[in-house]
């Protein structure tokens, strides 16, 4: 299905990542944003609030906190709107509660986290990448989730559409893990015509309303979605539930449900993975990065190559589900994997696990507050070759 032209601001613009993400959401058909102000993400909400009355058919609301924002967008999705919220570290922590409800209820929605330095209030106006494991495991219980890391305003636009498409396809909340640099850097953003934007429609139930079972999985493990007011009169709950959506308190039902929630993502991990590879063949060292760090690493890689070192690059556009297959394979063919990230080792440990001793893994940490020094990444590459 093609994008609704009403939400698509076709043309070449000069936007920061936050504004571009808001435009991406509108282009994807998002018509409900509930949010709470927090630096450095607020501009997404501001732009949405200014634009949505003109786009039509939607609404913005500023809720009393992030707990409420997340709850409200779950409600919005169940009433038929593509919905999203946006936040940063402290708000992301508060959203974990209802993110879990979204996973349990299998609600398509997008949550942007414009990451800043933490823990706690940390560095509100400066970048970090230290919420990556919280993105994976932050809500209690067992689940799989999708997380995408744009590295430019153009990608903030493009991957918002991908994020909505994933969330609809797999009926799972999808995280867009930006960082303050990407959110606040301003670059050219080209918004294509609506008929060039591919939209994954909601997997809507179209059978007889009285026969609707909200959690009966299709062959692809994904149940059909409905909305309140369409005659299906469904029940949904955060409790462990059967196909009817009714609570069932036993281990068998838990096993069936949680296994499906995990498998619907895990078995599609290779299909979900968006990876950018460069000069991997014949490389001795491969630099694995995501978000702004991918761009900061470029001069370090170029410098090493000028010196004749064989350095490849693997950029993780999707970090979750972790592209395990590709990293395992890669580890068997190179000497070392070098991982610069703005934290003291998060995605690094996933890479180390998948490398399984086949390649050295070198972490180039940074506590956040600014991006890596190119020299440090270069030193990491040299370290990998030792």
């Amino acid at each position, binding site marked *: 299905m093609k994008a609704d032209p009403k939400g698509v601001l076709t043309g070449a613009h000069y936007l920061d990542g936050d504004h571009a993400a808001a435009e991406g959401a509108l282009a994807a058909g998002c018509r409900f944003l509930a949010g709470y102000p927090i630096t450095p993400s607020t501009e997404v909400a501001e732009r949405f609030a200014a634009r949505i009355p003109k786009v039509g058919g939607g609404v913005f609301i500023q809720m009393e906190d992030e707990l409420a924002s997340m709850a409200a967008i779950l409600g919005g999705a169940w009433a038929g709107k593509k919905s999203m919220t946006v936040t940063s570290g402290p708000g992301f922590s508060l959203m974990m509660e209802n993110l879990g409800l979204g996973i349990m209820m299998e609600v398509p929605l997008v949550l942007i986290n414009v990451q800043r330095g933490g823990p706690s209030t940390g560095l509100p106006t400066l970048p970090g990448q230290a919420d990556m494991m919280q993105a994976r495991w932050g809500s209690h219980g067992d689940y799989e989730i999708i997380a995408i890391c744009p590295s430019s305003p153009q990608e903030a636009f493009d991957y918002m559409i991908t994020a909505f498409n994933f969330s609809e396809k797999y009926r799972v909340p999808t995280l867009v893990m930006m960082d303050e640099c990407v959110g606040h850097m301003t670059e050219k953003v080209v918004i294509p015509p609506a008929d060039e934007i591919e939209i994954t429609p909601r997997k809507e139930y179209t059978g007889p309303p009285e026969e609707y079972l909200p959690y009966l999985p299709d062959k692809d493990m994904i149940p059909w979605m409905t909305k*309140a007011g369409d005659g299906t009169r469904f029940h949904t709950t955060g409790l462990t539930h059967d196909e009817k959506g009714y609570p069932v308190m036993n281990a068998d039902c838990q096993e069936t449900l949680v296994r499906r929630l995990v498998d619907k993502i895990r078995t599609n991990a290779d299909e979900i993975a968006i990876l950018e590879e460069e000069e991997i063949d014949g490389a001795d060292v491969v630099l694995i990065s995501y978000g702004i760090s991918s761009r900061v690493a470029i001069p370090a890689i170029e410098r090493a190559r000028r010196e004749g070192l064989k350095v490849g690059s693997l950029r993780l556009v999707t970090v979750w589900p972790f592209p395990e297959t590709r990293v395992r394979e890669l580890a068997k063919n190179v000497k070392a994997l070098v991982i610069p990230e703005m934290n003291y080792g998060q995605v690094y440990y996933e890479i180390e696990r998948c490398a399984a001793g086949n390649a050295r893994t070198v972490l180039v940490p940074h506590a956040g507050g600014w991006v890596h020094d190119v020299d440090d990444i270069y030193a990491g590459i040299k370290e990998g070759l030792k």
Partner: protein
Amino acid sequence: MSEAIETARTYLRPSKKLPTVWCGGCGLGIILSAMIRAIARVGVEKNDVAVVSGIGCTGRMPTYVDFNTLHTTHGRALAFATGIKLARPSLTVIAAMGDGDALAIGGNHFIHACRRNIDMTAIVANNSIYGMTGGQYSPTTPHGKRGTTAPYGNVEHAFDVASLAAGAGATFVARSSVYHARELDRLFEKAIRHKGFSVVEAVTNCYTSYGRLNNHASPVEMLRWMKENSVPFAAAAKMDPEELEGKFTRGVIVDRELPEFIESYDEQASALAENPVAVEQVGNILRRFDAAAERLNPKSG
């Protein structure tokens, strides 16, 4: 009575087996049936009703009724309901919550929902205790009464739910009890019909977790207590504070008009569409964003 049973049957889910999870003698069933009678009287189609709940004994209420029903997280029913109503205003949205759910963990959502005046109804089943977790004191446990976490008596002071709602700006506020089942359904009906945010506090009994700890003889005796210790609002106005000590008032406490959120939002949006000046203003806001961006980084592009 048989008519009432018939009404209830029409609105109960055929696919959901009874009995309910509630204890014998619990007042929550009375609240549920009063809600059903109110909806039947207002005459909304079942398809057009969404009942949202949080966690606790009251949280289980939606499971049994044949509407669009959403059982959410502790305290968040109103925030969730807000999203439903804004995304599909044609729905009649009711949030059913207990006192702990609505006023402790959900207290912030409660007051902000009152303030926003979105056209939906909050039912607060107030039994002055955390029933499901076994009797811990709640924000409405009276001073001196016992809970398992207040074994020597509650040293805190209770919220007056209806006054709280009124103070926070709800445009319709009423209170009754499960003893006054008929009055309760009439108040629910008024609340649902009210254009704007409405709150009905339904004083109810939890013999299992509150009554036994506080020397009540039985669920029925607790109902009798409600009968003997409540006063219609109009009569209370003529009574001395001493006479009202330990009693609660019943009836409509607030009923006023205020622009409703969705109506105001839509008015603004259509004004934008028809008004070139307003369109220009939005354009200016966006241009201001762009200009700021340009100033920050004039070279790239």
